[in-house]
C-alpha cells in the first residue's frame, strides 16, 4: 500500500505536478540554507533517524525489534530524490540500530552528496570512560560506513554535573576537538535540553570550544512556553536569539513535538483549517521554524511516507510565515497551554523500563484522550459513559495490560533519561489513579 502510493506520488512529483489536488506548492525546489562556517548547503528539511519504521511484531534473537530496512531505504531514496541531504542519527536511537540502518541506506549514495549528523550518546555510566566514549565514536564511523562525520553532537546536554562527567573529566571533549582539527569531525556542537543558566554557561565557553552549531528544541509552543511547561527547560526564543547573536547555526529538533503539534484538539484543528483548509496542521509547525533564517535545518523523524511527502511539500520551497500568521501561531500556542497534556514527545529515551511499563504508550494515550475530549472530569459530564469507554477500551488497545501504569513501581530509573523533564513515575501514578476512578466509577 505505502509503496505503491509512494510510487504514484513519486511519479507525479517527477512530472512536476502537485502531488494531489490540494497541493498548490511543493512542486518547486527544496529550500537550502548555507552553513556560514563550512559553506555546506543544507536542506531545510533534515531527516531524523530516531523514529524509523519497525517490522510489526517481529523480534530479533536478542529480543530487540527489527527495523524495516527496505522501507527505510525507500524513504531515504525518496528524500534524497527530493533534495533532502541532512540525516541525523545517534548510537542510542531505535534500540541502538539507527546508525547501522542509516549507514546501509546512505552508503548507496556518494559520500559527498549528503551530510551525516550523529552523537556521542554516552548516557550510561558504563560509557563515561574515555575508552568507552571513544569506542562509541569509532563505532559510529564504522556503522555509518564513513571516515568522517559532518555534524557531531554532544548528545543532550542538560546540566553542569552531567557535562563534566560525560565530556570533561574523561577528556573526550578534548579528543573530539582534536578530531575536528584533523577534519574527521567537520562540525562539533551539542544538543540541548536544560535550564537557561547552563545554556548561558555553554554560550560563555563558546570561545573555548567554538561550537560549530547547536541543536535546540524549537517550535511555536516551546518558543515562549517551554519554561512554563517544565521549569527545567529553556524557552526556544531565548536560545535561538542567543545563538543568532553569536552567528551559530541552529538545528531544530522536535519542531512537531513528536506529533503533538499535528494531532491537536478538535477546536484547534478547526482554527487551523478555517485559515488554511488545504494545509496540514504539521506544515504550520515546519513553516514556523523554517521562517527563522538562523535555522540551518529542521529535523523530522519521518516514519511514514506521508510524513515525508507532507514535509517536502512544506519546504519545497518554504513559504515563510507572515507577521499575521506568526501572531496566529502564538495564539494557537496559548490555546494549547489550556490542555493539560503530558509533554511527552515519544522519543523513547526512557525505554526500556526495567519492569516492562510502556511509558510513552501510556502518556500518549492519555494525551490522545485529552485532545479528543475523552477525559471526563466528573461522572456528570454529558459524554461521560462514551468517554469512559473510549478511555478504558482504548487504553487496553494501546497498551497491553501488563505494561499499564498500574504496574509502575515508582523506582524512578526512567526519570534521568527524559529530555523533557517529565517526572514519569509521578505522571504514571496520577494516570493510574485516574484510571482507577474511571474503573470504579468514583469520579
Amino acid at each position, binding site marked *: 500500500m505505502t509503496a505503491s502510493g509512494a510510487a504514484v506520488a513519486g511519479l507525479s512529483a517527477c512530472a512536476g505536478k502537485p502531488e494531489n489536488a490540494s497541493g498548490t506548492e511543493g512542486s518547486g525546489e527544496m529550500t537550502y540554507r548555507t552553513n556560514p562556517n563550512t559553506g555546506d548547503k543544507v536542506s531545510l528539511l533534515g531527516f531524523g533517524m530516531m523514529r524509523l519504521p519497525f517490522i510489526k511484531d517481529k523480534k530479533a534473537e536478542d529480543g530487540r525489534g527489527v527495523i524495516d530496512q527496505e522501507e527505510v531505504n525507500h524513504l531515504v531514496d525518496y528524500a534524497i530524490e527530493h533534495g533532502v541531504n541532512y540525516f541525523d542519527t545517534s548510537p542510542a536511537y531505535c534500540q541502538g540500530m539507527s546508525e547501522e540502518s542509516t549507514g546501509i541506506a546512505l552508503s548507496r549514495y556518494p559520500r559527498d552528496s549528503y551530510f551525516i549528523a550523529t552523537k556521542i550518546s554516552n548516557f550510561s555510566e558504563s560509557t563515561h570512560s574515555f575508552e568507552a566514549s571513544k569506542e562509541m565514536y569509532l563505532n559510529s564511523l564504522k556503522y555509518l560506513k564513513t571516515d568522517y562525520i559532518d555534524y557531531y553532537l554532544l548528545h543532550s546536554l542538560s546540566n553542569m554535573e552531567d557535562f563534566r562527567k560525560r565530556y570533561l573529566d574523561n577528556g573526550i571533549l578534548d579528543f573530539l576537538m582534536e578530531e575536528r582539527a584533523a577534519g574527521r569531525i567537520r562540525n562539533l556542537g551539542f544538543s540541548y535540553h536544560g535550564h537557561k543558566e547552563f545554556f548561558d554557561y555553554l554560550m560563555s565557553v563558546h570561545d573555548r570550544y567554538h561550537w560549530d552549531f547547536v541543536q535546540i528544541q524549537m517550535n511555536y509552543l516551546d518558543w515562549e512556553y517551554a519554561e512554563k511547561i517544565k521549569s527545567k527547560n529553556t524557552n526556544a526564543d531565548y536560545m535561538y536569539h542567543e545563538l543568532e547573536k553569536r552567528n551559530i547555526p541552529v538545528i531544530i529538533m522536535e519542531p512537531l513535538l513528536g506529533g503533538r503539534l499535528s494531532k491537536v484538539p478538535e477546536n484547534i484543528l478547526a482554527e487551523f483549517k478555517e485559515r488554511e483548509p488545504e494545509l496540514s496542521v504539521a506544515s504550520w509547525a515546519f513553516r514556523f521554524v523554517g521562517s527563522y533564517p538562523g535555522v540551518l535545518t529542521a529535523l523530522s523523524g519521518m516514519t511514514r511516507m506521508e510524513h515525508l511527502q507532507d514535509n517536502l511539500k512544506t519546504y519545497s520551497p518554504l513559504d515563510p510565515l507572515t507577521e499575521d500568521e506568526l501572531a496566529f501561531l502564538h495564539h494557537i500556542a496559548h490555546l494549547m497551554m489550556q490542555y493539560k497534556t503530558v509533554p511527552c514527545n515519544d522519543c523513547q529515551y526512557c525505554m526500556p523500563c526495567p519492569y516492562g511499563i510502556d511509558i510513552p504508550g501510556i502518556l500518549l494515550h492519555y494525551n490522545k484522550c485529552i485532545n479528543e475530549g475523552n477525559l471526563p472530569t466528573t461522572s456528570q459530564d454529558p459524554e461521560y459513559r462514551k468517554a469512559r469507554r473510549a478511555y478504558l477500551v482504548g487504553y487496553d*488497545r494501546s497498551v497491553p495490560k501488563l505494561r499499564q501504569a498500574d504496574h509502575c*513501581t*515508582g523506582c524512578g*530509573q526512567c526519570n534521568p533519561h527524559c529530555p523533557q523533564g517529565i517526572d514519569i513515575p509521578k505522571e504514571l501514578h496520577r494516570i493510574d489513579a485516574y484510571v482507577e476512578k474511571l474503573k*470504579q466509577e468514583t469520579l
Partner: protein
Amino acid sequence: MLRKIRAVLAAIFFTIITLLFLDFTGTIHAWFGWMAKIQFLPAILALNAGVVIILMILTLMFGRIYCSVICPLGVLQDIVSWINGRRGRKHRMRFSWSPAKSWLRYGVLALFIVAIVAGIGSFAALLEPYSAYGRIVSNLFAPLYQWGNNVLAYIAERVDSYAFYSKDVWLKNIPTCIIAAVTFVIIVVLAWKNGRTWCNTICPVGTVLGWLSRYSLLSVKIDKDKCTSCGLCTRGCKASCIDYKGHAIDYSRCVACMDCIDNCTHGAISYSFRYRRQTPAAATETGGNPGSDTANGRRNFLSATALVATAAAMNAQEKKVDGGLAVIADKEIPERKTAIVPPGAVSLKHFYQHCTACQLCVSVCPNDVLRPSGGLLTLMQPEMSYERGYCRPECTKCSEVCPAGAILPVSAAEKSAIQIGHAVWIRKNCIVITDNVECGNCARHCPTGAIVMVPVRERHRYRHGNMENDGEDRTPALKIPAIDTEKCIGCGACENLCPARPFSAIYVEGHEVHSEI
C-alpha cells in the same frame, strides 16, 4: 400446536441460557440472569424455596416440561436428536419402547444425594444437567465466541470504534475442559442414537421430576378407541416411554415434548387432564394395582425430595460452623495453602457444598480471576487466583449470577469489607530487596490501606549484635511492605500488581471462613 409452543419456548430458553455463558460483558445477565436461577438443583442448593415449589407445581400440573423447555442439557439433546431425524423418516422414527431402568435411576440418584450430603461437590457436579451444560458451553464454545468477538474487536479498532473490546482466551483448567468435552461427546452420542437416554437413566433431576410427573394434572394420553396400534407414537418417542401395544405411557420418563401428538395420524393422542375421565381400566395401564402403586410412588417421591431438601438444609446449618478440614486445592503458581473463593461464598465449606460447578461465575468474571479448580474433591468448582487480574473493588458479578447460592449476593460496599484471604510477603522475591530499588506498588494499590511501607532493616546485622557503620544509614532507607492482616481483604491487587516475576513477592492466602473487617 403444543409441540410448536414447546419448541419455541425451548429455543428461547436454550439460546438465552447459552448466551449467559458466552456473554462476558454481563449485558444479558442484567435481563435474563433469572433463567439460571430457575434451574432445579441450583435452586434447591440455594434454598430458593419459591423456585423449587414453582417448579414442582409446574411439573405436577404439566409433567416434565422443565426437562423439555428449561433444562438446557435436555434441549441440547433434543436438538441433536432432531438433527439426526432430519436425515429422513427412517431416522426420525428410530425409537422403540423400552422398560424403565429403575435400579439405575434410583441408584444414581442415591449416589448423587450421598455426594451432596458428604460435600463431594465434584461428583454431584458431574451429573447435574444444567451445570454439565454450562461446562460444555464455557469450556468448548466460549473460546470460539471470544475469538469471534476478538475478530470484531480487531475490526472495531481499525475503524476507531469502541463497540468491541478484545478478551483473553485461555485454558482455565485442563481436567474440567476434558470432562466437559467427554460429557459433550457422551450426550451427543446418546442423543443421536436414542434421544433422551441420559435424562431417563442418569440425570438425577430427571429422576426426581419423573416421580412428580407421574401425578401431573395434565398428561399425554392414548385414546384406545381411536388407536390403531400403528406404533408411530412409539417410534417417534425420544424418551422411549410409549408402549403402544399396551396403550401405556411411562409418565416418569415422558418429557412432555408433544411429538407423539403430532405423529399420531389418527388423533388418538391428546394432552389433557389425567384424572377427569379416569376409569379403573385406564389406571391399570400405568401398571399394576392402581391404588397401592400410586401410594407407593407418592411415598417414594416424598422421601426422595425430602432427602434432597435435608441435604441442602444440613449444608445451610453447617455454613455457620467453623472447623473441619478445608479442601486444599493444588495450585502451581503460587502455592496457596487455602483456596480463595469470592466474597459472598461465606466459607469454603458453604461454597463447595452449594456450588454445582456450572461455570457461570467463571464465564462472567471480567478480571480472569475465577477458574475451575483442579483439586479432586472440588474439581470444576471455581477458585480464585490473581496471576491474570485481581478481584476488583467495583465488581460483584459472580455474586450476582450464582444460581446455587454458593456465592451469595453482596454489594460492592459489603465486598470491600469481606476478608476472603490475607496477603503474605515473601522477602526473597521483593524487588526492594533483590533490585535495591524503591517500589511500594502493592501499598499504592491496596484498596483498604492494609499495607504500610516500613524502612528495610538489615536483620542479620542486629541479630549478630555487631552492626556495621553503627546502624547509621547514609542513604534514605528503602521501604518494604508490611501487612496489616486485620485490614487485608485478600483481593489480590498486591499480588497481581507486584513487579516480581514469576513469583510475586506478595501473595494471598485464602481464608476458610470469610470474615468482616
